[in-house]
Every structure is written in C-alpha cells, then in structure tokens.
C-alpha cells in the first residue's frame, strides 16, 4: 500500500460556542417534545405524584418526610433528565441526524449546550412544581429558602442531562441505554445518604460515596432543610454538583465524533 499523505480534519475546527446555533438546537429539542405531550405530562407529573405518595407513606413521622422529601426533590430531576437525555441523544445517533449535523457547521459544544438548555428549562418547570407542591401543600418543613432547593434541583437536572449524554455514547440500542439507569444511578442512590447517613456506612462505602456527585446533591438539599442561611457547606455542595455536570458535559462532547467508522 503506498499511502502518501494522511487526510485528517484540520485542527481549526470551530469549537467556540455559537449562541444562535445553541438556541436553535434548544428550540428544536423543545419543539420535538411539544409533539409528544404524553412525555411532557409524565415528566412533570410523576415527581409530584411520588411526593404525594411519600407524604402519606410517612403519615405518622413528618420528620422523616422532611428529610427524604427534600432529598428526593434533588434526585427526581437527576433521574428523569438522565433517562430523557440518554434516549434522545441515542435516537440522534441512530437516526443519522447526528452525522448530518456534524457534517454541517455545528460545533459539538453547540449541540451539547442546546440539549442542556432545553432539558434544563424542563427541569426548572418540573422542580418548581414539585418544590411548590411539597412546601405549600404537603407541609415539607424547610428552614432555608425554597429558591435554594430549586437551585440545587436545577444543578441536579444538568448533572442528569450530562450523564445521559455521556452514557448514550456507550449504548448501541434503547435497551442498553435504559440499562445504564440502574448501572449509573442506583449505586449513587444507595450511597447518597438517602437511606442511612453516609457517616454510618462502612468506611469503604463512605469513601466511595465521597466521590459520587449525587451525595453532594442530597447534602445540599439537607443543608437548605436545616439552615436559614446559605451555609459554606451548601455553597461547596452546589459547586461540586455544578462542577461535575460541567466535567461530564465535556466528556460527553468528547464522545461526539465527526468521523466514525
């Protein structure tokens, strides 16, 4: 074989974010969802229904509802956005639209940011409804500001979107994509301190839970629950969740390849 020169993509690929392409992508994702009202309804109603259920499961112990309810307000957006994003991006990969987009002048960052923006918007609506319901109608006793609960919920949703984008690269089918939910989310759910305080766990598990982002999401929620002010721990937790989301979004961008086999 006499291969002379090797043609590769020039290193000057437009990596800078284009605001109009990002917003066009976010609008497109939301428009797709608008043609699927059942998904929107499920997305928004399920967390509310679960909270109502939980409230009456712990009918006799409102303190337990306070702590678990607040934790769940952080966990719901993470799980739902993870599922929705991993399926949506997998469809984008398998339908050929991703290949088409990447042969067009669309930066990978534009696509990722577009998805994050669209699902972040949905997460705000979902979290606002769930938080409002929990605080005003189900008697969730929050010492701090409900706005801070909402902030953590939004960061969690972004983390879920980021994780979903990332794992969709490793799923060849919808079956596999759905299986990533127990694989990626369940260990975090068990170790995040929802069932038992993290300090009571086996030291090895406690150490593992220290590096899982959902632990900080739940810690952050509990800080708001117990303290009137924004504590230093809360700020740390929020920054860690945001940082993880950003890191995983970048990893997700790295899995988008313009050239594929």
């Amino acid at each position, binding site marked *: *074989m*006499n*291969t*002379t*020169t*090797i*043609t*590769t*993509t*020039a290193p*000057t*690929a*437009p990596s800078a974010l*284009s605001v*109009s*392409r990002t917003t*066009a*992508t976010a*609008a*497109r994702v939301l*428009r*797709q969802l608008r*043609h*699927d009202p059942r998904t929107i309804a499920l997305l928004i109603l399920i967390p509310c229904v679960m909270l109502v259920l939980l409230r009456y499961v712990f009918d006799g112990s409102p303190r337990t509802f306070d702590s678990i309810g607040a934790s769940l307000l952080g966990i719901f957006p993470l799980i739902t956005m993870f599922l929705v994003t991993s399926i949506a991006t997998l469809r984008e990969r398998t*339908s*050929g*639209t991703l*290949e*088409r*987009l*990447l*042969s*067009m*002048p*669309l930066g990978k960052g534009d696509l990722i940011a577009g998805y994050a923006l669209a699902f972040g918007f949905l997460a705000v609506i979902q979290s606002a409804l769930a938080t409002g319901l929990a605080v005003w109608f189900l008697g969730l006793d929050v010492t701090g500001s409900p706005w801070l609960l909402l902030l953590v919920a939004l960061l969690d949703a972004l983390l879920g979107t980021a994780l979903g984008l990332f794992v969709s690269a490793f799923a060849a089918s919808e079956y596999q994509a759905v299986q990533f939910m127990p694989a990626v989310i369940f260990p975090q759910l068990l170790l995040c301190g929802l069932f038992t305080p993290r300090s009571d766990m086996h030291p090895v598990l406690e150490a593992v839970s220290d590096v899982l982002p959902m632990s900080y999401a739940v810690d952050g929620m509990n800080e708001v629950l117990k303290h009137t002010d924004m504590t230093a721990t809360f700020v740390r937790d929020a920054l860690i969740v945001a940082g993880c989301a950003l890191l995983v979004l970048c990893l997700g961008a790295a899995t988008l*390849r*313009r*050239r*594929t*086999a």
Partner: protein
Amino acid sequence: MMNYVVDPPGAAPAPNPTPAVQAEALTVVRGPRTVLRGIDFTVPRGQITGLLGPSGCGKSTLMRSIVGTQAKVTGTLNVLGRPAGHPSLRTRIGYVTQAPSVYDDLTVRQNLDYFAAILDPGRTAATRRHDVDRVLTDVDLATHADALAGNLSGGQRSRVSLAVALLGTPELLVLDEPTVGLDPVLRRDLWTLFHDIAASRGATLLISSHVMDEAERCHRLLLMREGEVLADDTPDALRTRTGSDTVEAAFLHLVDEAVATARQKETTR
C-alpha cells in the same frame, strides 16, 4: 454568499479549475475490512457524476469520506480544493445519507427551519424562510410542509432529507441513493431538478445508485466493484469502449473482465 475557490498557484487556468473531488490512493479500513483499496479518481466541477456499483461495493463509504464523516481514511482526498473534512467545507457541501436523516417528531418545515439555522444563523428569518420555501418547491413537498415527518411515506421522507441538503447554495451535492423507493414520475422530476442544479447553479453532483438506467442520465460515471474503481468515464465512452448498447451491459462486461484478470493473476502466481 458564494465562495468560489481560488485556484492554487500552478494549477490549470480558469476554464479548467481544480476538480470538485480528487482522490489518489484513497484507502478506507472499517474494522477488519478494507472497504476502499487505494482508488484514484476525479469528479469534475459543474457536472453530474454517477457512482454506480452493486450494494456493498463501497459507494456509501466513499461518499462519507468525501463529506468528512468517515474515520480511517488514508491517501489523498481533496474536495473543492481543500482536504476532505476541512471545517470550511461544511457550509459548501450538501449531503444526503442513504436512510433519511430528519427528525420524525418535527414537521417538514420545522426540520428545514432548524437545519437552515444551523447552516447559516447570520441570515435574517425572512431570507431563511425564502430558502426553506424554495427547497420545499424543489422537492415538491410544499403541500406537506406542516405534516410531521414521521407521518410521511418513505419516499416523502427521503425527499425531506434531500431538501435539507439543498438549503443554502452548496457547491457540491453528495447524494447517497436519493431516488430509491420513488415512483417513475418523481424519479424523472428529481433528475430534471439535478440537471437544473448543475446547469443553472453550476453545482457539482455526485449521485450514487445501483439502478443502471439512471446511469444514462449522468454526465460521467464511476463504476465500482469490491472497493475498486472499474471505470471513470462518460456513458458514451463506456459503451463504445466495451462495444455494448447499455451502461448495464458495459458494467457487466467490465466486471467479467476484472474477474478474468484477477483469475489470471492467481494462476500465474
């Protein structure tokens, strides 16, 4: 917004500009298979070049290499004067994949609006709308603009996919089997459109097909088989050279010839 390529110094003078696509020793490996085996060819500008051959011969891989979405490409491959996959080519090439790549849960117009915004967000909404209307008319889907792409028939969906590639003013259109599954009337209309695009807009079209009668409508033909180019010529020249009446007969003649030479090599070895 037309970007005409300036000829590199030392190239042929204006009437004979750089070819739209120029390949030398182009090789593509996919997994354990070598799909393209060091092929050489050129695609001249402003003409329709047909890429023909049986399925699995490497047509789609060749097209993906040209638009820059194929990995593991070695050899030389220049497209519109730039190495294939160069970022500046992304607005200058229209590409249609074999399976229609559009969003099933958007209407035809919403699909086109989105891709038009990605292609050139700088244009005003009115200019973009005009562009979308134009391509809808081109592919004869103006009456279906507000239908969900997922509710359209297979042929209609592939025309939506084609319409996306026609947005803007691509200098090179790479169309992977754009007429598969279409009825004879539509196929004729699309070929009229392709000729119109080549003639009036001066665009280059590379169209793959495994239907040989479409070959007669092309200005030039690239006949492929098992990752190699059997012939790179005009339909007339091919028929004359092989002494056949149709391109199909010419292709079969060339395949037999290739098999015979391969066998001869085997025995002399």
